[in-house]
């Protein structure tokens, strides 16, 4: 495995070390001037992917807007762990209203800024998957359809974590949650047809849609920056492992995010005006099993009564993503 050591410090790889890059190419997170929009001291679990994601996204957006940014937050872990009274981790103007109305509140902020001639100040709305794909979905679609000048970010940890890890519309098949236990003939969440809000966002033909994971900081920051270069409705769907809800090791958050992408479970792509413009290809494909095994929420697939049939169905879904988005490197397809 000697080749890995060489590649690790080369520019152009996904794990490039910041120290070896030109200052211009370094991540926002690596810069001393980063805004620390979500600053330390909050109450997230160790290894919380959502906390990482929010920090990366907002610092990048702050840089892109020269600090002229307002954040609107739906109810969920991010809101709760960041603002236990009387403390707040937010170092930017931040408003939380309800669970299901984040996109509409953000639209209202944007309208007010426009009406007062302050459209130099930009708006980011943010929510978990529940606040985005389920209860806030109508408001989100309205915001898209009106093309309001908001970047809406979904931190997808695939469940209602704040209320104790229940199933959401973004919970994947077979995953165990508090409302989809590993009991009965179909253990864990059912195999539904899925609900891809990035694709639904694209169907609104909004200027910019992207997916990203917390495993690739350069890519995530780039997408925020790109999103902020557009006016109108933009959508960013960030894959954020949740050690508590997924029953995974805190140290595995980044690794799991990377495996989700490298297995094809979570396709990473960009789209403009309804058309896919770029995909992050898989560097070294791994079977979905590599991604599933470290997570306790899938333990029932591998224990004393293994369910290779279910793993195969999950693999088939990943393969469908790979084929649909062309995720394998050129020549491997």
């Amino acid at each position, binding site marked *: 495995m000697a080749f890995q050591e060489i590649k690790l410090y080369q520019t152009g790889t996904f794990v490039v070390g910041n120290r070896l890059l030109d200052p211009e190419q370094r991540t926002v997170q690596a810069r001393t001037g980063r805004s620390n929009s979500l600053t330390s001291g909050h109450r997230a679990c160790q290894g919380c992917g959502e906390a990482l994601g929010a920090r990366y996204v907002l610092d990048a957006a702050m840089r892109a807007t020269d600090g002229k940014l307002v954040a609107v937050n739906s109810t969920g872990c991010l*809101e709760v762990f960041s603002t236990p009274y009387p403390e707040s981790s937010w170092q930017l103007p931040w408003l939380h*209203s309800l669970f299901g*109305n984040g996109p509409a509140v953000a639209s209202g902020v944007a*309208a*007010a800024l426009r009406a007062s001639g302050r459209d130099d100040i930009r708006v980011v709305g943010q929510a978990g998957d529940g606040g985005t794909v389920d209860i806030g979905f*109508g408001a989100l679609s*309205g915001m898209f359809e*009106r093309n309001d000048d908001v970047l809406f970010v979904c931190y997808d940890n695939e469940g209602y974590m704040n209320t104790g890890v229940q199933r959401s519309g973004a919970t994947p098949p077979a995953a165990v949650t508090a409302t989809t236990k590993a009991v009965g003939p179909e253990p864990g969440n059912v195999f539904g047809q899925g609900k891809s809000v990035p694709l639904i966002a694209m169907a609104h033909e909004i200027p910019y849609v992207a997916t990203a994971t917390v495993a690739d900081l350069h890519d995530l920051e780039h997408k925020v920056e790109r999103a902020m270069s557009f006016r109108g409705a933009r959508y960013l769907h960030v894959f954020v492992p949740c050690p508590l809800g997924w029953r995974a090791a805190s140290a595995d958050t980044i690794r799991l995010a990377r495996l989700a992408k490298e297995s094809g479970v979570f396709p990473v792509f960009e789209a403009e005006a309804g058309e896919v413009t770029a995909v992050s290809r898989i560097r070294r494909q791994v079977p979905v099993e590599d991604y599933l095994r470290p997570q306790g929420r899938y333990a029932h697939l591998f224990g004393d009564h293994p369910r290779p049939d279910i793993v195969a169905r999950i693999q088939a879904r990943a393969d469908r993503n790979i084929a649909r988005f062309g995720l394998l490197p050129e020549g491997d397809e």
Partner: protein
Amino acid sequence: MRSQIEGSQAVARAVTLCRPQVIAAYPISPQTHIVESLSDRVRTGELAGCEYMLVESEFGAMSACIGASAAGVRTYTATSSQGLLFMAEALFNASGIGLPIVMTVANRAIGAPINIWNDHSDSMAMRDSGWIQLFAESNQEAVDLHVQAFRLAESLSVPVMVCMDGFILTHAFEEVDLPDQAQVDAFLAPFVPQQQLDPDEPVTIGAMVGPEAFAEVKYLMHAKQMTALDEIPEIAADFRRAFGRDSGGLLKTYRLDDAETVVVALGSVLGTIEDVVDSMRDAGVPIGVLGITCFRPWPAAEVRAALAHARRVVVVEKAFAVGAGGIVGQNTRDATRDLPLVVLDVVAGLGGRPVTRASLRGLLDDVVEDRLDPTRLHFLDLDLALVERELERSRHGRRPGPHAEHMLRDLGTVASGAFD
């Protein structure tokens, strides 16, 4: 300027004069003419510098208002009935945060059965949402209350609902004295937000609060509404000085001196009640009227003072608490609990049923003669035979079927609004 104008147009004009910067609204009868008119006024530039947001629901409308108000601009919306309930969660949020949003509620019944006509069930269902609730008696008062509402909301940083009877006021053409822009500008200073999302001074709004301070935050909401009890009469007095007419305030009294019997009511029905009271006064009956303009905050001390010399009070209201009784009635009893008087609850005008002079006269004759049982909830013009027939049907058979449809069939009516 005096104009012969539809209530909705008059309100839209009044709101325009108040220069809101964001309007977010979703159509529902009978609010539609107001928001259509405002949309026109924004498009033509009559209402300049305003963003009119065509939102996807009332929940979206109130949520957008929350965002806009927190971003520091004057914000307005309007709704009715189901729309108000669809906003419910956001209403409590707006008041909890303390955002001075002004909203017109064109009062309409709440389904089921679905019904577009007027009563007060919608506003009354939201009476504890933390919003100030002002009820207009006429279109003139509706216009005036809007101008006052922005001032009140912004001075206390509390949201205000201006309630006006759907159709009866919103769709009625009558003469209204519309203020001009200079008058309104002089009365209503530009909005200075008490809290604002501002990158130069970042604040966190909407933080989580646990047992250590939650009660205090809620107490503050209550305290602010109590302050409103002082503020509302002051604003009305100021309004009188600026515009030369009485509008707003907490209560309105009519022929109350020496009245042994007092009718309490709110909204447009007050006019009809006053007519009936006039005719009874002509017949020598000592009777008067107490109109509630401000229902939330509840002006308990003022209500008590106004009823201090009454022997019997009859509250005629267009809503009720199913399974409990009158709503305004209960508040009235509470305000007068140490007074030697009887408070009767009468529900009238539900779902658009006309409250006629004849029915009111019959009712008030009974009240004056102490023929109404004070321990019971009364319904004006209730068709008891219709209810009886349906109850009889329910006693037979395992699945008697849907009540509302049966009762319409019994009446030989297929659509709503066929009362004559």
